[in-house]
């Protein structure tokens, strides 16, 4: 298709090359240097979207990040699809495929457009008013339909095929925005020797200079001035220039998030090349040179395709060589629209009229337009427009009344002045200041080490922007400890200051209830909606924003904020500074999730921890479960075995002969020092002083509030050295807690704490044959029952490897745990397994471990406890060293609130009737199953298993006053029925402990 609106010359595009692209299935052509928006306009396409709520046809309104209408989905296939991109920011490349959003079946014939006929019934806040009742209708009827109708783009349905990079960076001065002010700031800072990062959202640096063709700078045209400045910057050794890089967020202590597009502008990049890079820049000083955003004027029907911001139109002409229309009506309250009118006029467009709200516009630009013979209508307003898919006419009238004049046109340009882009400054929590001369909020007192420059700081001319940038760059360099050499001011010609502006709804003399003047195009918020919110009593700007949705989503106040404030100010009769402004939230523009995920995808999302024996278990066909970030072998099924059958077999094997279990994930902390025993005395409930070297003790750890937080077996190697084990998930928490007490409460104790979790592989050998299995492998120790009783330990060699051998049992059987250096874990495991073959050794997993310990009534912290269980609640009061004056949690337990309390939940066992039902963990105990809810909950099931040993199901539970109610029958509510349960002692098997000795 021909580019019939492409100008023959001018602009920063390369007409020697043609790029083919598709939009909504149709083929078009553009040139390098185009954005998708400029290329569509070159092809005469204005209609690019349907609005959010009313499905109104919408066209390209802007030429930048603030674009509310031209949101498109871009991507050659589903894996590369990105929704909600602003066509004004999408760099054109050959083969680009884009589609419009929020329309069905097509942009031209969108059935959702019927919504627009009923607009009077969809006022502000209609979500809150209409869909309140009945409650279920919201989730079943209204919400799905509203979501389908009102929406931005669709999320891609498959995983992102691209990859993303991330990096940290430090610099002395970060300059955000490479327009005239930003470039000067970067040059000034760089000349001082500071390390500078200059980032800009666009494909080429230059900002407003890229669209400036009239001015001369130091006698040169803008393009060559810009080229020289950039070459200086590139030559300065310590400057990093980042184009296509949006500063999307300002975080505390001068950390700025940048999203750098790396390949979106390329045709079909290799997926191994990152698509984008997230930068986390810590800057000593920041210069915010983010420019200003032109405001729409809020006149009736100001949203038809072909209605555009004046400066955007000028940008399309001068930067992209595109004529956005041939017959334009200009409506303005600001001088800059005259520059736009002149640019269009020179490019061959007809200017039907320039309606200026100001009674007496004057100044260089106005005079230039007058001299060019453009028809200026001072004191005039625009009262309405016509045209369905493209504007066809506009009516202008005197502001003070009188008959309107209908002018045919294919383009309406509007300018309500400029709003400084204070988003980043505001995100940094800097205070905004209202400048009455400018009618705008500008950066005031900063909260971080930053300053604004150029149009973002409120300058209104190119000369001022350059000077302000220079000054800001020097100030930033100075603040960072550098000194910028003095520089000559730049001589600027043919770039007059542009002033003026208007806030709020423009006058139109029509029934304001019957017209729609859009304030927020993206969210379909009109002037009438703001007024309605005020009539309904909303006064706070934040409330009005939420009630009307004004400035929500990607707009974040870019286009809508000031006009809404203008209306509020007029209707409430209060000046804008008294009303205040809404909070500007990050991100400045949307950032794809992939940037934040970065490398943390797939296997790197949450890296798995594997024990040294993991691969062996995998080779044996083990099924694994996640325990924290560990992968643990859950059971080892044989051919055709279900989990139930495998676990039953493993349980039988341990009770009858011997099993081998990988306990390497146990947390381990080495506690060393002259005061190690005293430290343990103060940390654990148990008494440690009298524990002899070579002995083990089961330790219970409380928080200061008296509740059980961890447990584990602790071995004493010598007077000054302990080997502490913790729960699998608890080691970091326990170590951090110990460090806390050691450093801050007991600094007088001479103790070192070292995490040794990953230094040891732990091989548990459990069962009546356990000693027989390992005995041939042990050197340097007598492991006979007499020499090495239950709960003792010895340092020796196992299979030739130095080991800490514990005689300990978590199954109730004779048992050993072999601690060997992790690198030898698998070798020792295989040696033990080989030695065990004679005794029919069986590898078992965590499920069997759970069943066997439950049969013995051994608790698992985090399963039988939930952070509100005291030692006594879970039957561990025996562990407390009664003679100790203090330990962490003791004083809390001694409080009357605990001591005098009855009816606490206590650990008991449960037998179901009948015995083959395995309860659900977490299920509630009640007395009367037939009582309609709410029933009094007397306790809950903490563990429930099939016990192969007992031939029936068992469960552990916490039940109110449970120990005194053993023998009583309760009911456990399952999802479909209630099961009678009888309370029993929590130790189901070998209460005498005879089996511990084999």
């Amino acid at each position: 298709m021909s580019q019939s609106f492409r100008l023959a010359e001018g602009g920063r595009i390369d007409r020697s090359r043609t790029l083919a692209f598709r939009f909504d299935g149709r083929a078009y052509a553009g040139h390098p240097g185009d954005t998708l928006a400029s290329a569509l306009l070159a092809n005469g396409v204005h209609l690019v979207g349907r609005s959010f709520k009313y499905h109104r046809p919408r066209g390209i309104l802007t030429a930048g990040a603030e674009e509310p209408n031209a949101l498109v989905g871009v991507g050659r296939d589903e894996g590369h699809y990105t929704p909600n991109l602003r066509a004004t920011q999408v760099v054109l490349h050959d083969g680009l495929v884009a589609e419009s959003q929020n329309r069905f079946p097509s942009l031209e014939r969108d059935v959702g457009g019927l919504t627009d006929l009923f607009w009077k019934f969809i006022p502000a806040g209609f979500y809150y008013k209409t869909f309140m009742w009945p409650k279920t209708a919201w989730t079943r009827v209204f919400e799905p339909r509203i979501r389908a109708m009102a929406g931005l783009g669709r999320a891609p349905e498959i995983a992102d095929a691209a990859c993303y990079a991330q990096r940290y960076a430090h610099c002395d001065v970060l300059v955000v925005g490479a327009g005239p002010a930003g470039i000067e700031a970067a040059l000034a800072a760089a000349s001082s020797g500071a390390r500078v990062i200059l980032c800009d959202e666009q494909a080429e640096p230059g900002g407003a200079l890229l669209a400036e063709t009239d001015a001369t700078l130091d006698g040169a045209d803008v393009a060559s001035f810009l080229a020289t400045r950039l070459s200086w910057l590139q030559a300065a050794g310590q400057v990093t220039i980042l184009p296509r890089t949006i500063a999307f967020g300002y975080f505390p202590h001068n950390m700025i998030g940048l999203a750098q597009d790396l390949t979106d502008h390329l045709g079909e990049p290799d997926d191994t090349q990152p698509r984008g890079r997230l930068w986390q820049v810590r800057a000593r000083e920041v210069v915010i040179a983010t420019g200003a955003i032109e405001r729409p004027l809020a006149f009736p029907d100001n949203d038809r395709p072909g209605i555009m911001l004046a400066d955007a139109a000028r940008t399309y002409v001068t930067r992209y060589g595109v004529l956005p229309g041939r017959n334009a009506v200009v409506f303005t309250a600001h001088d800059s629209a005259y520059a736009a009118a002149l640019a269009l006029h020179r490019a061959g467009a007809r200017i039907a009229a320039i309606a200026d709200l100001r009674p007496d516009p004057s100044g260089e630009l106005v005079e230039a337009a007058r001299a060019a013979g453009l028809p200026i209508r001072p004191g005039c307003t625009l009262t309405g427009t016509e045209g369905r898919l493209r504007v066809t006419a506009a009516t202008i009238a005197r502001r003070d009344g009188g008959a309107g004049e209908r002018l045919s046109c294919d383009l309406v340009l509007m300018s309500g002045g400029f709003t400084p882009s204070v988003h980043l400054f505001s995100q940094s929590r800097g205070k905004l200041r209202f400048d009455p001369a400018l009618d705008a909020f500008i950066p005031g007192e900063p909260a971080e080490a930053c300053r604004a420059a150029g149009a973002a700081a409120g300058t209104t001319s190119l000369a001022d922007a350059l000077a302000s940038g220079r000054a800001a760059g020097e100030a930033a360099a100075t603040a960072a400890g550098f000194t910028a050499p003095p520089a000559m001011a730049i001589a600027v010609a043919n770039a007059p200051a542009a002033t003026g502006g208007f806030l709020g709804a423009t006058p139109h003399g029509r029934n304001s209830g019957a017209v729609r003047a859009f304030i927020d195009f993206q969210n379909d918020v009109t002037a009438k909606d703001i007024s309605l919110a005020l009539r309904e009593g909303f006064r706070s700007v934040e409330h009005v924003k939420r009630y009307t949705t004004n400035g929500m989503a990607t707009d974040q106040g870019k286009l809508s904020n000031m006009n809404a404030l203008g209306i509020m100010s007029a209707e409430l009769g209060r000046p804008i500074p008294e009303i205040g402004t809404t909070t500007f939230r990050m991100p400045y523009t949307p950032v794809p999730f992939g940037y934040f995920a970065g490398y943390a995808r797939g296997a790197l999302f949450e890296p798995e921890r594997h024990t040294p024996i993991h691969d062996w278990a995998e080779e044996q066909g083990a099924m694994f479960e996640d325990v924290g970030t560990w992968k643990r072998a859950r059971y080892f099924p044989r051919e055709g075995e279900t989990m139930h059958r495998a676990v039953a077999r493993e349980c039988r094997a341990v009770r009858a002969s011997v099993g081998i279990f990988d306990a390497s994930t146990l947390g381990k902390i080495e506690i060393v020092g002259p005061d190690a025993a005293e430290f343990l005395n103060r940390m654990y409930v148990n008494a440690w002083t009298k524990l002899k070297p070579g002995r083990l003790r089961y330790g219970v750890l409380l928080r200061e509030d008296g509740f059980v937080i961890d447990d584990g077996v602790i071995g004493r190697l010598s007077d000054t050295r302990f080997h502490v084990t913790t729960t699998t998930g608890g080691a970091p928490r326990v170590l951090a807690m110990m460090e806390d007490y050691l450093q801050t409460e007991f600094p007088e104790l001479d103790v070192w704490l070292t995490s040794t979790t990953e230094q040891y592989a732990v091989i548990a050998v459990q069962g009546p044959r356990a000693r027989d299995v390992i005995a041939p492998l042990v050197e340097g120790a007598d492991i006979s029952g007499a020499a090495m009783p239950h709960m003792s330990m010895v340092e020796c060699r196992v299979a030739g490897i130095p080991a800490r051998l514990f005689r300990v049992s978590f199954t109730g059987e004779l048992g050993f745990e072999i601690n060997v250096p992790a690198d030898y874990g698998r070798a020792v495991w295989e040696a033990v397994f080989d030695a065990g073959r004679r005794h029919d050794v069986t590898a078992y997993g965590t499920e069997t471990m759970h069943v066997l310990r439950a049969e013995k009534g051994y608790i698992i912290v985090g399963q039988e406890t939930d952070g509100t269980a005291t030692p006594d609640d879970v039957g561990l009061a025996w562990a407390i060293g009664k003679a100790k004056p203090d330990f962490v949690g003791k004083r809390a337990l001694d409080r009357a609130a605990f001591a005098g309390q009855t009816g606490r939940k206590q650990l008991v066992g449960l037998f179901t009737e009948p015995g083959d039902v395995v309860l659900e963990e977490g299920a509630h105990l009640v007395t009367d199953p037939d009582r309609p809810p709410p029933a009094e909950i007397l306790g809950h099931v903490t563990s429930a298993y099939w016990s192969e040993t007992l031939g029936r199901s068992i469960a552990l539970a916490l039940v109110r006053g449970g120990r005194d109610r053993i023998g009583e029958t309760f009911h456990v509510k399952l999802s479909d029925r209630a099961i009678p349960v009888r309370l029993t002692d929590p130790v189901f098997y070998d209460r005498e402990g005879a089996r511990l000795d084999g």
Partner: protein
Amino acid sequence: MLLIPCPHCGERPEIEFAYGGEAHRVRAADPRAVDDASWTDYLYIRRNARGEFEERWRHAHGCGRFFNLRRNTYTDMIDRGAAR
């Protein structure tokens, strides 16, 4: 992300640290000498200040040491001279 001055390692990003709650809560040398109400306060009552706040941090992924810091909980600004 905060930039936190560790008194031993210098300024490091927040992800290297673990928060330690309000500073200057001292565990009584002999808890038995403290009455129930005071101990309950010690356990549960915190200032939860909006504004200047002295708090503990631990350089968990660095030197491992606890230290105190004065931070404004409203502005997140840290008194960089006061780290100790």
